[in-house]
């Protein structure tokens, strides 16, 4: 299993498309850091958790595009043609998808680490700021829920018809780049609008900084998106299992 996962990751990370996407993501990340994050979100410090969350939520659409792209590989013609051989081994369809999923998530983590590393270098160079442990909460809240949701949805779209995965890329990219959420309140899967607007509602402390205090409703929606993503992935495994048993 480890060998298969390692091979899958190697295949994903060394693909030309991934490298091109990674390059674009890093260039865009630097652009956001240099022009937006440096000003600080909602009057907070550029290295506040609000500013960092806002930075990550601007870059997230690029990361989501990578995830859905990875999902397209699971359902590509080449992959489908070798799947019959793969599944003739003791590997079950669920294990097959889990292997692919682990590989996708490790590749996603690798991209995210590079983006986060770039931002840390920016803070070190620009502000002599090194207290990165502070950023763990924004990292988890901004990156994981949309990644889980789009991973599940991307897999389901691929199972139905691989064309839908590309439609999903378009929609995720366009809506992810708008500071606008079609879902009222702070329920949208992308949290850019939330991190840009919510801190204005909070009262600053004596030093003028706004505490990083998130409403329960926001945390619940993050959880809901994550759960939906996981449920969708389980659904993909269930449907595929049922189909293969029928065959």
């Amino acid at each position, binding site marked *: 299993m480890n060998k298969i996962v390692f091979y899958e990751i190697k295949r994903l990370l060394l693909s*030309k*498309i991934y490298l*091109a*996407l990674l390059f*674009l993501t890093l260039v865009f990340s630097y652009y956001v850091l*240099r*022009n937006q994050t*440096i*000003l*600080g979100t909602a*009057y*907070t*410090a*550029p290295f506040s958790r609000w500013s960092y969350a806002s930075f990550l939520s601007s870059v997230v659409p690029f990361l989501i*595009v990578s995830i859905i*792209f990875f999902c*397209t*590989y699971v359902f*590509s*013609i080449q992959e489908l043609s070798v799947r019959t051989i793969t599944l003739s081994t003791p590997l079950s369809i669920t294990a097959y998808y889990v292997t692919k999923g682990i590989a996708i998530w490790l590749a996603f983590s690798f991209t995210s680490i590079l983006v986060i590393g770039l931002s840390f270098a920016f803070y070190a*160079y*620009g*502000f*002599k700021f090194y207290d990165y442990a502070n950023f763990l909460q924004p990292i988890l809240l901004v990156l994981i829920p949309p990644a889980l949701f789009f991973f599940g949805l991307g897999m389901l779209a691929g199972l139905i018809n*691989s*064309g839908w995965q*590309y*439609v999903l*890329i*378009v929609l995720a*990219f*366009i809506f992810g780049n*708008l500071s*606008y959420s079609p879902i009222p309140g702070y329920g949208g899967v992308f949290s850019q609008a939330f991190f840009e607007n919510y801190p204005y509602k909070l009262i*600053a402390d004596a*030093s*003028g900084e706004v505490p990083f205090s998130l409403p329960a409703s926001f945390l619940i929606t993050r959880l809901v998106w994550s759960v939906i993503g996981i449920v969708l992935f389980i659904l993909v495994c269930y449907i595929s299992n049922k189909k293969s048993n029928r065959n």
Partner: protein
Amino acid sequence: MNLYTLTLNECKKLASSRISIFLVLLSATTPLVGLYLRLLIMAQSITTFTILSPVKTGALLCTAFFAVFTIYEMDRVFRNNVVSIIEPKISMLQFNIAETLAIIIAAIVTVILAAFAFLPYTIFKLGDLFEPGLYVFSYFGIMLPGIVFGILLSSGFYMITRRMDISFFLFGALFFLSSSDTSHYLAAWVQTNIPAYSDSFGNALAMRTALWNRLVWFCASTAMFLLGILSTRRYEKSISQSLKINAKIIYRPALLLILIVSAAGSAIYEPYFDNSERVEYTAIADADSNMAAVQMIVTKETNKHVVLKQTLADITIIPKAAEINGKAIYSLENISNQPQEVELSLQPGYKIFSLKINGTLAPFIDMQTTIMNEKYFQVKLPANKEIKVEIDYGGKIQENREQQLALGANQISEECVFLSGRALLPGFSVNTKTAHISGKITLPAYLTLITEGDVNERVAENAEKGTNTWSFNYHNSRISLIAARYWKEKIFAGGIEVEFYYHLRHANNIKETKASEIIKESIDFYTDLLGNLDYSNLPLKIVDTSVLLMGGFASGNICCVGEGIFEPAVFDIKFEEGTTGIEVLAHEICHQWWGVGTHFNNSGAWTSEGLTVYTTAKFIQHKYGEKYAQKIGLDSWKGGMEILRRSFYYRHPEYMQVVPEEYLFNVLMENNGIVIYQQMPLQIMKAEQILGEEKFQGILAKLYRRYKNGLSYSDFLFQCGLTEEEISVE
């Protein structure tokens, strides 16, 4: 089976497919998103909101949808492994062309559906402002070509790579370029970079540049498609072997070559923008005043041994051809008794047909330099004291390439002419302090001409050609011209004559908003407060201009305001979102005292804006009372200061020392608006509070009287008898 039959079959197949029907119906509704969200626009006008925003958003979404659909459809035969069945019966080249053509037909149907669906609403919303030509152009010149290019490009990518993911990535990269880079008008191939539509002054430059963009991308996307067709795999051979087979019919590679050359040629030799050298700026980050300033590095110097006395010009403007022809006679004085080399500059799109010095044809050398939309030539002047230079020139405008984002500068069109400086006539880089310019300008009779300086009189009419000739006369070396279908209303205010020019279409709005009364009352108020304008022989000209000129400005005795402010809902003080039209109008008029009548020695936060904003608020207080003045004045300025105070760098100035110089500029630039428009008026208000309103207003009148040639912040403090610290609001 020929191509026609194949295409028909593909069309039938699409018509019976649920996915394609869903795609067409979904795509036809995408303009709704732009109608609701007002995306991808830079200025406000009702035509922009009702036509441009929906169409640009629709173009963006539909292009993405159709590109995905194209790649998916092209992949179908390979996905289903039916190539070996199809190929013996049908040419795969023809099959790919037919598939692409069928999708393009679906795109045409989509745009026709969208255009019909939104037509009743658009007509209802725009009323008299509805222009069928602009509507048709928007749907079939912006939206449809974007989708078709997307289909051709993605189809080409797929046929070359035969990989869905790579094709999609390549398309995505081009799509991202279009949606993110609006600094070059040719880059925005999907939605174009038209920033806004003018309601009444035409959109000629926007339409011309959009059509050129379409020409470039038609050639480029068709070339990519043709390359894809040539790459179609034959008999399961490799791409290079297939290319060899497909290119045997010579017209195919020849056509591809023609398209590539056409695309590159039309992009390189595009006709609307010049090749101005990038202007060099020095960025100054001033942590003391919380501001960043940009200073242009001037590379051209004037020849001080030569003095320009007078310029006489006879200019003809031909809006139909977007052309200008002119003759200018310059009276120069060479005070050096030596031959002199002087630089002559001209609009880069114009040509000098002949140049005579004292009646004799003289050479002029093209210096191959274009700076800030001025192309430079070198001319040798004789040692004579009195020199007459006669220049015949003309041509079409090439706009400054830095203006591609706004598309709102010099233009000659049938609905509006706006020309300033060298776009009207050439000029010498010499001493122009005592220069005087006058002459005649001929235009179509339906256009009313406005220039700086004296009243523009209609001196001749040519009924046969349908033109009028107007006079102009101004004490300066440069002059600007505005012409449109104007109505001129004369107002007597502040002891001077005011000419208020507004577009005929805006007559009802002007009547409803009582804008003329605001003009009269504001001028009377400023005159009482500060003193008379120095226009005893000149009228003050207040001009309604295109929304594409992005806001208002003052130049000499002309005061321009964007058409959007006269919308009754925007003009009125009840307007709650942003600045009202009344404030904009009163502010621009006030600049006649601060900025035009008095020159400012700008330094840090001290510019003409501080006193203009303060004085405008005083007028609003006089006209609408304390409560409203408080809202747009003190409350707004204090709000700005609150933002400044809350900003991180204001609270922690020590970080100004930490942040690298190259980042600091961005940080401080963010504050410029607040510091100039809110902090400075608040400081001025504090001075008023310390000195008392009456005494302070006396000082303002004194400043206006005494410091016409340069008013600095220290002059202001000195006359107030206050120190910087005393009026500090930090």
